[in-house]
Every structure is written in C-alpha cells, then in structure tokens.
C-alpha cells in the first residue's frame, strides 16, 4: 500500500541576519490514508515548520530541499498556481489561534461559504446550505443562528469549530492540526480533540496533529514522531512508543509532565539546559548536552533515525531498555527520579 504522504530527507533553512538557521534537518516519515500521526516536540523543534512545508506555507526566506510526495505529486518546488489544487482540497490545516485566522469584520457563514465556492462551483444558496451542514458536522450549536454572527460573538472553542468547518470545506484527504487546541481551556481542548478524532474516522481523513503535549498524542494518535532540534529522534506506533520508549529525550519529555498520580511536592525529573542554537549548529547528537546517558561518541557522531526494531525507529547511540535492565523500570521510576 502506498502512502498518502511521504516526506524524505526534508531540509529547511532560514536566512536570518546573515545566519543560516537549519530549522528542519533531514526529516523523513510517511503517513497512510486515514491514519493519525502526532508530531511532538518543544518550541523550535521544527514540528510546525515541517508541517507548513507540507502545506506550502513557508515564507520566501525559507530554502527547502528533499522531497514531500502527496499521493502522486511532488510538492517541493511546486509552482504557486499548482499549489492551489492541493491546499484546502488535498491538504487542509487548522491553526492554534482561531481568533486571528478569521476575518473579524465578516459574518461566520459567508466566510465558510466563500471557501466552499473556491473549491466547488456551487450556486450561492447551495453553498450556504453546505456551510450549515459543515457547521452542524463540527457540532456548532444553533448552526443557523451562528451563520449570521461575527467571530467576536463566538467563544474560542466555537471559533475553532468554525476553523475546522472551513478546513473541511474542500473535503481534504489530509488534515494538519497545528497545536489546534493549545490556546483553548482544558475542557474545551478535550471536546475539540474528540471532535477531530470522530471527524477523522467518519470522513476517513489522515491527520497530522502537531503538539508539544505527549499526553494528547497518547490519547489521539496511531503513530508518534518525536522531534528535537529539527530532527526526528524517535518514531513508532503510539502503543509501542509508550510501552518501549528508547530515546532519552522522549523519556525526558514524558517525565516532565506533572501527573495526578504523583504525590504533592514530588520532584519532576527535569533535564538541565536548553535546546541547541540551530544557527550555531552542533556536532554529534543534538541532545547530548542535556542527556543523562551521553557518552564520548555522542559528542562525535550524529545518530540517524533508523528502524532498529520492526516499526520502531530511534536516533540514539545509547537507547534505553536495551542493556538487559528490567523494562518496567522505564516507566515506574518517573516523577521520582533524583
């Protein structure tokens, strides 16, 4: 079965103040139709930049090399006119801040209708009817009344539902949700994630969810790709990743999440330091300076993201859980590690 999306050796450089920042460095992954991939990492890990490359939304200062194949089309180097055929119709995106993505001076309905008519030649009345269907599909209460309202009359969660409706207007095969629930309240976040999951199943879309939160990835994805300093550092099915994680960075991310199970005032296992400066470049493993397992070779050679076990890739010279130590220790000690 061929993949819906295949990314190979993607490199993205930005020129900023006479310095070259390598935001994405040799990223490869593929995504099958109807599946959900979570791309997880911190600020500056390259997760958003790589997704924007898939949407063709990078600024002109970006230099992109490598390959992004969507169905049968190579997207890297695609002329702007041809992009329009994919953006929205093939691939759609939902962003973090719904308030800034909507035009504050236009009513909700016309904003959705306009996008529908960009994709399909529909008479105005039919497009409006479809807009209301989409609004109902994203479970926007009282869709008909909302049609006439302005964005400021809607809550953040409702605005994000409108953005999802707009993203679905072109019947995309791939939906990219870029921190789509980060700006929302916790109960709203959970509702929107449940909505995205249900829609994805109903419509058979593939989804890339970009998040800083491994917790969200655990609940809502089939596969996880962990990024650090512009590189993929661990990738596996969600089940495998959480039961047999190998990359010390992934463990650091997981252990840094406060848990309800921890007793009050428990120390979090926090790795020291900060991610490397991508303009300065680095030698060896980008995580070495912060890694509790780093040894001499980590400073010399950069580990590649290689499939070491079936379906499980990691980029690490000294992965966790492979030296015969008891596996359960991997997860049991978290939250308490000195």
């Amino acid at each position: 079965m061929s993949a819906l999306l295949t990314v190979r050796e993607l490199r993205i450089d930005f020129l900023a103040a006479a310095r070259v920042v390598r935001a994405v460095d040799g990223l490869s992954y593929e995504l099958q139709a109807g599946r959900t991939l979570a791309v997880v990492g911190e600020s500056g890990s390259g997760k958003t930049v790589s997704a924007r490359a898939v949407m063709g939304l990078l600024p002109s200062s970006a230099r992109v090399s490598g390959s992004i194949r969507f169905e049968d089309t190579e997207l890297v180097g695609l002329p702007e006119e041809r992009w329009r055929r994919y953006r929205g119709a093939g691939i759609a995106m939902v962003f973090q801040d719904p308030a800034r993505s909507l035009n504050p001076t236009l009513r909700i309905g016309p904003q959705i209708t306009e996008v529908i008519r960009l994709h399909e030649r529909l008479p105005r009345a039919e497009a409006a009817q479809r807009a209301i269907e989409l609004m109902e599909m994203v479970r926007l209460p009282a869709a008909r009344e909302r049609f006439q309202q302005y964005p400021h009359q809607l809550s953040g969660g409702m605005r994000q539902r409108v953005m999802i409706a707009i993203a679905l207007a072109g019947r995309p095969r791939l939906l990219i949700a870029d921190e789509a629930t980060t700006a929302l309240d916790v109960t709203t976040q959970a509702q929107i994630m449940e909505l995205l999951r249900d829609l994805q199943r109903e419509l058979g879309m593939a989804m890339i969810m970009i998040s800083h939160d491994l917790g969200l990835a655990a609940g809502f994805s089939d596969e996880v790709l962990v990024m650090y300093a512009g590189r993929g550092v661990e990738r596996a099915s969600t089940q495998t990743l959480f039961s047999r994680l190998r990359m010390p960075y992934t463990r650091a991310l997981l252990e840094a999440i406060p848990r309800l199970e921890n007793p009050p005032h428990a120390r979090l296992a926090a790795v020291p330091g900060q991610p490397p400066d991508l303009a300065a470049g680095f030698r060896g493993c980008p995580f070495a300076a912060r890694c509790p397992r780093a040894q001499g070779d980590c400073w010399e050679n950069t580990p590649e993201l290689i499939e070491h076990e079936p379906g499980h890739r990691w980029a690490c010279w000294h992965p966790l859980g492979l030296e015969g130590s008891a596996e359960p220790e991997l997860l049991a000690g978290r939250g308490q590690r000195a």
Partner: protein
Amino acid sequence: MSEPLLQVSDLVQEFAVRARGGTRVGVVHAVSGVSFQLEAGETLGLVGETGSGKSTLARAVMQAPPPRAGSVRLRGIELVGLKHRRLLQARRQMQMIFQDPFGSLDPKWRVARIVEEPLVAFGIDTRQGRRRRAATLLERVGLDPGRFADRRPRELSGGQAQRVAIARALALDPALIICDEAVASLDVLIRAQVLNLLEELRAELGLAYLFISHDLALVKQVSDRVAVMYLGKLVEIGPAEKLYRRPLHPYTVALLASIPKPDPTARRVPVARTIRGEQPSPIDPPSGCRFRTRCPRAQEVCALREPPLRELDSAHVVACHFPVEDRDRELEATAADELGGRAPAASASGAGESAAGGAPVLGNSVGGRGKAVAGGELRRG
C-alpha cells in the same frame, strides 16, 4: 488558634460594563463571595478555566485593584481600605509572579537592576549591599550573576526571564508568593525546571504559594490543598490527594476527565459526558448553581437555590446539591471499561456507538434522571 497567613473572606470583585457613551449596561460578576485561608508554608492551588475569575481573585487579594467587598487579612492585618505607603508596607510579604515573564520585566533595564528594584523602592540597604543581594538572589534561582546580571530581558530565554521574575519576587523576603499561570508559557522541560525551583525555594525558605493554573495535574503536583473555581465561585476545596481521588463537584470531575493522559492504555471517559456546552457569560450568570447549565446532574432545585459550601469530608468542602458519590464513580468506571476505555485510535467504535453500548449500565442501576454523572449525556450521544 493562631492567625492564618492569609485570610480571604467573602471577596467580591465586579466590573461595570458600559456601552459607548458610558451608560451602564451590565456588571461582570468576576468574583462572587470567595473565602479561603492559607497557612504559612502551605501551597494552595487555584484551578479554573478562562473567565473563572482566578486571576481577578489574585489581583483583588493584592489590592490591585482593591475588591468591591470582602476582607483580605495578611498576618492579621486588613489590607482592604489601606492606602498608599501603608498598603505597600503591609503587602510587602506578598509578591506575585505572572504568566508572561517578558511582560513583567522592563525591557530597558538590566537584570541586576530589575532584581534590586524592590529593595530600592523600600530604601533597603546600601548600593553595594543591594548589588550583593541581587547576585545572591540570581544565584539562588540558578542564574550565574557573572553571566546574567548585565543582560537585558531580550537576551534571556523564557525560562531565564521567569527565573529573574522569581528572584525579584524573593528580594523582600516574602512569606507568600502568588503565582498566576507562572509556568504556563514555558516549554515542557523548562517548565519542569522552574517548577522544581519553586519547590526548592518553598522547602528552603518556608514560602507559601497561591498557585493559580488552568492545569489540574500541574496544580496537583505542587499543592497541599486545591480550590476549584467556576464562573466567579469556589465550587470545591480540599486536600490535593482527596480532591483528585474523590472529586465531589461535577465540574471537578469534568476537569479531571479533560486532562490528557500520557499513556495510550489509560482509561478515558469522553469529556462530552461530563460537561456540555460552553461557559455562560459572567455578566448574567445562571441563577442558583452557576454550573447547572453545563452539569449532567442538574435538577430543578439547582436553578432555584444556590448550593452552599458544605464540608462533606474533613477539610473537603463542596458547593453542590448533588455531589458525586463513590457509587457514581464506580458506575462511571464501569461505563468507561465498557467503552473499551483505552486508545481511541485502535478501538473501532465511533462515539455514538460507544455511548449506546454504555447506556444500559447507568440506565438500569440509576433510577432518577440526572442522578448519575453521565446519565443525561449518555442518552444524548
């Protein structure tokens, strides 16, 4: 019994909403009769979503601006009504750290001056003495004074800037620090570092924290007690461990169900079954219980009478006519298991189908409508 460090009683904060021209068109009931106390060395977590009034409450405690009504006593001294220098003196032992570290640091000032500023304001120590104190404070928050004292805020990362804000808050030897979403804007690993720093300072200096956050897991991690706010009201307050194991208020149940669990095999209750709709406007909050419009357990009485705060378990207080009972929790757990409970991606059943599968469990065991947590929502699918 000795006086608590901070005693807040019946605090009310309201803001008038005016139309163009200044006509008063409504009142935002931001904080409506909130009471709590905080002992020295204790951390009270305050949880709530946007619009719950948690930040307004913090500011009212700081008298910035002073509350519309109620009392705030710090070490027994009433702050409400104090003016100017007397207020500054009385408030000295209470400091605040905000969400956006850059927004709270003057971009033109160097780090050392920022940290010294409270000492200058109170005329403490000589110039050299203040310099030394600033260096000690920077060291204490994990910043090498040699490298950081002369930097300006823009030369700091978010985590470093927040450390500077903490150093400044420590300058006057406070007994209480109010942390308002103090780690919300930081990346996961940096956030863990700063949380650990706050914990070290607490243990070492005997600090008390009022720790405000929308993140219940985070609050649980640092707090001795947790208070939950909804639409300007305290709805539940209790020891952290108890509140999380036996939440009594349906809103707390919904908050707990909303926390992403970093474990694909964890049991997940669909949030849509614990809470519905959107938060109403604080300009015209619902009658009776303010949560009733979203509550799956709500009945007629909830619209008619406001539920008083009552102590159901020692030190565990809730404002609800139909608090969640152990039996409800068991039923909910059974329902979650019936749903397959775990990773949605692999389980094939859609939401509607799952809900139908879970319905009989609660339907049979529970007689009255709305008695069970999920009773109403379940049938709606």
